[in-house]
């Protein structure tokens, strides 16, 4: 019985993620192409899907969400409480000479929502997952799994990169929201239990200082960081040659470039927000 091939046979953009098919190297070009291709498939993931058709990409997103998102909750939770405590002590120490330790909740809420929350979560996800993503893809390249997918006309970006990227895009903002809440709880522990200030006062300062735009900027940062971590780690894994010895190097490079990328992106967003009235 013959059936017509579905449109993906001819409509998909050319598969140019292969290092051997990139005449002009350069990480920026390669990552830019990977980002564009991932956006194409992310868009198709949002399109309506017939209920009786298998959905391996959506199933992959759920699997990755479990590994990259749920798996990081305990780590993020514990770190966030500690970060809240550390921040309160540092700010209170600076304000003590002026007798203003009590207002450290103001600095905490603002700083955690805009800066510490997204950055800490991004660094924890890089430490936990960037090397794993790059190592997995590099190992697949070395074993010929990526070649096997290409020969079968299956785009590795669609089946391997997009599930991880989509999972990171869901997980990082969620983890950032959790981190901000728990850092605030950590701050309360420091202010009320250790420094001995009134809980009601802490909540009042928190309410006065924390604006929706602070949370919005923090979540926007986390979305940028998620894209960056997903693309950089995947690119480092996919661009290795077919050698087992390249796997470790790819994992190391991915952590280094992801950390640098996150810090650079954070700087850029901060500079941008600084000059936009209403966002500071």
């Amino acid at each position: 019985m013959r059936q017509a091939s579905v449109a993906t046979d001819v409509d998909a953009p050319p598969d140019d993620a292969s290092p051997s098919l990139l005449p002009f190297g350069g990480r920026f070009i390669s990552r830019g192409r990977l980002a564009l291709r991932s956006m194409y498939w992310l868009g198709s993931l949002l399109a309506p899907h017939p209920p009786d058709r298998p959905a391996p990409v959506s199933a992959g997103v759920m699997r990755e969400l479990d590994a990259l998102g749920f798996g990081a909750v305990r780590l993020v939770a514990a770190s966030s409480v500690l970060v809240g405590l550390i921040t309160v002590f540092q700010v209170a120490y600076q304000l003590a000479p002026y007798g203003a330790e009590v207002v450290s909740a103001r600095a905490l809420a603002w700083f955690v929502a805009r800066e510490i929350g997204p950055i800490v979560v991004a660094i924890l996800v890089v430490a936990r997952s960037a090397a794993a993503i790059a190592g997995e893809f590099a190992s697949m390249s070395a074993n010929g799994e990526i070649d096997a997918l290409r020969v079968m006309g299956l785009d590795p970006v669609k089946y391997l990169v997009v599930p991880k990227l989509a999972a990171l895009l869901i997980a990082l903002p969620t983890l950032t929201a959790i981190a901000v809440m728990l850092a605030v709880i950590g701050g309360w522990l420091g202010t009320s239990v250790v420094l001995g200030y009134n809980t009601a006062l802490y909540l009042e300062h928190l309410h006065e200082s924390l604006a929706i735009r602070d949370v919005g900027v923090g979540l926007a940062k986390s979305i940028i960081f998620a894209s960056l971590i997903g693309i950089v780690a995947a690119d480092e894994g996919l661009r290795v040659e077919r050698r087992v010895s390249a796997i470790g190097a790819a994992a190391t490079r991915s952590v280094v470039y992801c950390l640098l990328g996150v810090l650079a992106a954070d700087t850029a967003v901060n500079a941008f927000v600084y000059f936009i009235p209403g966002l500071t």
Partner: protein
Amino acid sequence: MTGVAPVPAPNDVAAPALRIDELSGPARAPVLHRVSLTVPRGGSHVVLGPMHSGKSSLMRLALGLERAARGTVTIDGTSFDAAHPDENALRRARRRVGVVFDSSALVSRLTLLENVELPLVEHTAVDATTARRSATDLLREVGVVREIDRTPDGLSRLDRRRTALARALVLEPAVVFIDEPGHGLDAHAAMELDDTLRLLQERYGFAMLICSQEVRYAFHWPDAVSVLAGGRIAEQGHLEQLRHSRHETVRRFVDRRGAA
């Protein structure tokens, strides 16, 4: 085979399933020089050669996985320039090919069943139930009967190779490329796989290009054999011709390995 795979009509049923003309490459560091061979429809061609003689490069270049320095590849009537492949032609040609890599190259994140289902999901409009049934049937046919819902981790090499074979056959290809079919298998397992290959080829009539350093494949499929040495075809023909080759290297290779 599965009864659901789309089978594009071949452009020319009289043409060979695979034709490689003057293939040299890879472009960045050529190891293969002016290699030509054909595989008739339903037939086989065994490429023999010692390690690093260029067998794997031949497969990769013929599949467009690496850029060739020159040469043309025609798969089931679709030709592409291996040095500057047209993306659409390459995609059409690959659509008619099944490949079993020496490492099996199953996607480690997916179960055996999902590995076999994936080409069906991508290239056909089958529903989930049909895709699952077809993949299960094919896995049974190649001899993988248990634990198809597990990932390939911890699976025996024979079962990995069989699963890779099922995945290669699921879209009813015109030609199947097999790199080192006996790689890492003991004699008994390798024999089992040979029997499965022969049975499936008889049943479904696909062509096979087998690249190996083991001469026994030439004894199993003796009609068309090429011996690669130093990236060139030293001799090509029926196995009997090779045993009386004027090249001592070829005679020694065939006799020594055959005796082993």
